[in-house]
């Protein structure tokens, strides 16, 4: 299909026609004059020389005029016209072209437009570009674009469009108005498909974020490994002295020291958990009683729960055991509970419930809170590294990322069920 006619209505072709007409006039005129003069020769008793001379003037004069005046004016026009046509040919092959009237209604398109959008020519012509609007850009984006081109300027930018089949493509667009007597009569737009570049860009961005995240986690691990020694020594002193004390204590005192033992063990576990990113040779997975995990973690967050006057409900529908690294599973649950506490802290109804149950035959721990829920625009960012809604210094933006990576390393998963107004996070374990 040739779409040239849609773009070139007259002007460039006229230049060619002008030139041919001019040539024709010169040639025909000269021949006519020659004939006239030759025929009328005897009447006017003109000698052959005179006839030849006159004819020569009539042939030579237009020729000279043509050569010195008309041609120099025409040639640049012709060259420009040829160049334009070559440019257009190249553009129409490589770019997505369209032309609209002053209101933005499409009057013509090229084949690339049809190919990329998936719409036919008939479907596109007569419509505005809102047909392929992806709703990705906010209204201000297009308002700004229209302001620019309405003022007679060229607008350039990246636009995300939607194909007929619902998928998306990105184009780099250049839109220019065509002016006639300072009035905008048409707009032309030249677009280039940049979908692949956009995808690569996005991938790169994600990769960088991921790299940054793992770099941060690794350095966190290295720091923890470094301080582990320093912390474990005083812990050894605490435990050793408890051991020494224990022979002199009665039962109720021993109950107290057992709490100290537990606390020390927890500190040791945290140090170990932090360093898990460098410490690759972890111990074997052990059977972990999820009910015990819940009890343990709830004990750890008890102070936070009671100081915030939160109503905590624990439901255990069954006893469940999984093969896991216990401190890591505790870390995940702790993250979820801490998030839940932050979510309900300032809401009028402060309710958190932890359920141990089977969901679709999978062992799950559910953490539900009565907070304000998670806004839709936030949901997809929730598991992105360094995304946090907490105030500066309060959240690292790594809690859920780490938690999910732990669950996935256990061949389980971590996700949430948006269930207005409450939010439920689900720790799902391998079957």
């Amino acid at each position: 299909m040739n779409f040239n006619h849609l773009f070139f209505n007259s002007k460039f072709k006229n230049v060619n026609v002008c030139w041919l007409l001019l040539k024709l006039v010169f040639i025909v005129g000269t021949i006519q004059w020659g004939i006239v003069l030759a025929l009328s020769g005897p009447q006017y008793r003109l000698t052959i020389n005179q006839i030849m001379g006159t004819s020569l003037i009539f042939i030579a004069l237009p020729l000279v005029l043509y050569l010195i005046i008309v041609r120099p004016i025409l040639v640049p026009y012709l060259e420009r016209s040829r160049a334009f046509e070559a440019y257009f040919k190249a553009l129409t092959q490589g770019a997505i072209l369209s032309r609209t009237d002053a209101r933005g209604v499409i009057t013509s398109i090229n084949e690339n437009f049809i190919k990329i959008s998936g719409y036919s020519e008939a479907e596109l012509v007569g419509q505005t570009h809102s047909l392929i609007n992806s709703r990705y850009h906010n209204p201000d984006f297009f308002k700004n674009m229209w302001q620019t081109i309405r003022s007679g300027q060229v607008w350039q930018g990246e636009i995300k469009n939607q194909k007929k089949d619902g998928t998306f493509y990105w184009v780099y667009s250049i839109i220019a108005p065509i002016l006639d007597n300072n009035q905008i009569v048409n707009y032309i737009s030249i677009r280039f498909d940049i979908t692949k570049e956009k995808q690569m860009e996005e991938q790169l961005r994600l990769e960088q974020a991921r790299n940054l995240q793992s770099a941060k986690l690794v350095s966190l691990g290295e720091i923890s490994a470094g301080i582990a020694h320093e912390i474990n020594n005083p812990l050894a002193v605490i435990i050793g002295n408890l051991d020494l004390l224990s022979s002199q204590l009665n039962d109720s005192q021993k109950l107290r020291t057992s709490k100290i033992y537990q606390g020390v063990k927890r500190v040791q576990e945290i140090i170990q958990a932090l360093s898990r990113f460098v410490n690759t040779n972890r111990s074997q997975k052990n059977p972990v009683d999820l009910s015990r995990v819940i009890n343990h973690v709830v004990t750890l967050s008890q102070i936070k729960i009671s100081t915030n006057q939160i109503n905590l409900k624990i439901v255990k529908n069954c006893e469940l055991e999984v093969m896991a690294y216990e401190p890591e599973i505790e870390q995940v649950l702790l993250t979820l509970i801490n998030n839940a506490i932050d979510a309900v802290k300032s809401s009028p109804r402060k309710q958190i419930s932890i359920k141990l149950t089977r969901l679709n035959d999978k062992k799950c721990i559910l953490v539900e809170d009565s907070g304000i829920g998670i806004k839709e625009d936030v949901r997809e960012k929730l598991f992105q590294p360094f995304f946090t809604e907490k105030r500066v210094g309060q959240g690292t933006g790594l809690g859920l990322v780490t938690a999910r990576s732990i669950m996935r390393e256990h061949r389980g998963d971590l996700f949430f069920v948006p269930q207005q107004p409450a939010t439920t996070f689900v720790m799902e374990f391998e079957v």
Partner: protein
Amino acid sequence: MNKMKILYIDDNTEILEMFELFFSGKNYEIKTLSEAQLAVQTINIFQPDVLFIDYRMPDINGIDIVAQIDYQKIKAFLVSGELSFSDPRISEMFQEVLKKPLSLFDIQKLLEQLAKTR
């Protein structure tokens, strides 16, 4: 049977003190040492049956010390607050790597077991 000879080398004197307190009056011959530079010399003179040695000490680490002695004769334990080791000599030189913080009761159990196998 002779009392089992136990040597504990650690630059942290608090740990040594606890160790001595805990095992004093029990059926062991206990010696502790906090100066790592005297370690080789002390081991050679005292000739312990069981050696507990800290990994990270000033100037020298426990593995390098044990490498200088006849470790075949001694049941040596590396005690450490480190999280992991990659030194290949460990499995050859030590019975086990014990992680700090370590309960004294755990050490007692360990020693009782060793006494049985002696």
